[in-house]
């Protein structure tokens, strides 16, 4: 299970170091230690807290949507609209996220999209790719089924396990 130092956890949630430290002291998020014995928080608990905070702080506009199957929504202000004769590029600033949509000019005109409007970018769940930091991939590679690992060159026997051990250190 991944753990994060206090500074890193604070940055991920956009709060100050002191706030994150206060939350660990008050028990709002449980504390643990990293591999060196330094104060840290559990990744899963941090993710739960991040989700709760995002939900409680979400703009009210997001709640006005009719029932839809789209799992992912980013509500924010339109910051830029560029149109040519066929297509339009629309940018939405949703909290810390800049979302870019390419849509037909017909659609942009019909919605009257212009900078300053409240809009929601919706993304179907099957269209979302997931990336993880390279360090985490190295750490977990030995846990993957052998058939999933395609080495660029023949590794020595035990290479993956040794790499995993050195990554933990």
């Amino acid at each position, binding site marked *: 299970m991944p753990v994060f130092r206090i500074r890193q956890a604070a940055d991920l949630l956009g709060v100050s170091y002191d706030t994150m430290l206060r939350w660990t002291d008050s028990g709002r998020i449980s504390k643990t230690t990293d591999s060196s014995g330094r104060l840290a928080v559990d990744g899963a608990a941090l993710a739960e807290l991040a989700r709760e905070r995002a939900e409680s702080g979400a703009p009210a506009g997001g709640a*006005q*949507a*009719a*029932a*839809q*199957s*789209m*799992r992912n929504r980013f509500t924010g202000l339109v910051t830029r609209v560029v149109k040519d004769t066929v297509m339009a590029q629309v940018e939405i600033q949703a909290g810390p996220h800049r979302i870019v*949509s*390419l*849509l*037909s000019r*017909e*659609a*942009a005109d*019909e*919605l009257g999209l212009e900078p300053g409007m409240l809009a929601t970018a919706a993304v*179907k*769940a*099957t269209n979302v790719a997931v990336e993880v930091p390279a360090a985490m991939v190295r750490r977990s590679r030995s846990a993957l089924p052998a058939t999933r690992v395609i080495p660029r060159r023949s590794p020595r026997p035990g290479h993956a396990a040794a790499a995993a051990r050195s990554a933990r250190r």
Partner: protein
Amino acid sequence: MKLSARNQVPARVVAINAGEAIANVELDADGVRLVASITVEAVRDLGLAVGSEVTAVIKASDVILAVAG
């Protein structure tokens, strides 16, 4: 609410094949069969059941064309 998606097809749910995470929802759009792969979570949120009236929404850049040949 208004949508940017250019294709919005009224349809009726004729079958729901739910797995652990994803459900394939079969639709009848005036004689045309459509299938939507959506999360089981979405099926529950929308209260979908056989007979539900829905709108299939497809972004224009996701539509592929074929011609006889």
